[in-house]
């Protein structure tokens, strides 16, 4: 009985704009894929995001962004994760990014960037392939 590791995901929205429709859509899609989604709403600072990720013991952080603050917030989040020895948490981004920023974001450790128009099924499939609930080995 039991011993089923459930994937836990944090969907967060750094930056100042208050449009979280995209984030809500992805949160719902992840729920429907069977994940436990911690949803924290808009205006999250990198510090808040990382603190939440640690307390909630998530496997994946999905960052939704529109406002263009990603070149500040994404590196800061990666830095904080490193500080807390939590680099095992996979980080992905979704939203509108200038094409030239995408390689830079991957370089600092963002695993994947999903641009507008990506099918939800494709994102879910990517997560299922690339993110395993942490500690799954001991559970098996």
């Amino acid at each position, binding site marked *: *009985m039991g011993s089923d590791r459930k994937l836990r995901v944090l969907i967060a929205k750094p930056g100042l704009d208050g449009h979280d429709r995209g984030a809500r859509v992805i949160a719902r899609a992840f729920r429907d894929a069977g994940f436990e989604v911690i949803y924290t709403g808009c205006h999250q600072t990198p510090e808040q995001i990382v603190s939440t990720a640690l307390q909630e013991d998530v496997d994946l952080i999905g960052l939704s962004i529109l406002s263009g603050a990603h070149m500040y917030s994404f590196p800061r989040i990666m830095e904080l994760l490193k500080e807390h020895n939590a680099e095992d948490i996979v980080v992905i981004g979704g939203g509108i990014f200038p094409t030239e920023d995408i390689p830079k974001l991957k370089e600092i450790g963002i695993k994947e960037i999903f641009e507008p128009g990506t099918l939800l099924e494709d994102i879910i499939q990517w997560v299922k392939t690339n993110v395993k609930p942490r*500690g799954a080995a001991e559970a098996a």
Partner: protein
Amino acid sequence: MEIVQKILDGDIRAVARLMRDIDDEIPSAKEVLKELYPYTGKAYVIGFTGSPGVGKSTLVDRLVDKLRAVGKTVGILAIDPTSPFTGGAILGDRIRMQRHFLDSGVFIRSLATRGHFGGLTRSTHDMIDVLDAMGKDIIIVETVGVGQDEIEIAHTAHTTVLVTVPGMGDEVQAIKAGIMEIGDIFVVNKSDREGSRKTIRELRNLVELGLRRHKTEGPPWEPPIIETVASKNKGIDELYEAIMKHKKYLFDNKKTKLERVLFDRAKLHFVGILRDQLFNTVLKRARERGEDLDELVAKIVHRDVDPYTLANKLVERELGDSK
């Protein structure tokens, strides 16, 4: 165990991971819980319950301000429902609690019901023990807003706050049956809305009726009814005072009240563990004999056997006579 010391020291990652293991039913978590048990029993547990959207998370957020201002550390367990169709969940209570994310005196954990009914999760009591062992003074449990079956939280928290909003006449009817068993404090939140007075009047009538009917050992507790506007921080001082007053009432009446609360919680916890263990043991042994649960169920469907006979057979085989 190294992990035990880490929990006692309040190590965030260790605590978060242990909670994960508890929820995922990883066997090693039980060993840690055994070692932690002697360090528990110090925290004060407050439950918030009430229908979806009445403002439980917002109230908790405001109350945490008060608790932090008087120097208390706080652990929060915020429960939301698991979708029965997909097994997934959206845990959104944190949206209202953002202001406390960076306060090291506050630890927030979102929990999904994972098929458990009754407002809590199967793991809630263990989670309370972990927060208690890590040194949190106050533990707040926000139930999944079922609005019907709140007895689990009432048997878990020292003080249970039942939250409602104006114009929910049906809800008042629904809580009528067990009103004195559930709420130690009633909150009419969103009292900036029309109909607040009427809801308060209805509640007061029910409380008075309940007080007359529900005789218990020791001095009675008359549940206060408090008007709040959580989004505007109104009525929070009164709520805090009411909780402190109820706490004092419990401690002034140790034998008849406080010990009763602790007994109810331990019983609910223990019975849950025992039930799970028996169930898991019986099924595990059956599996070892090559009998899979689904195959057993298929026998019932085909009318090869009735469910009682089959259950009896499995239990008797492991435990002897069970009739």
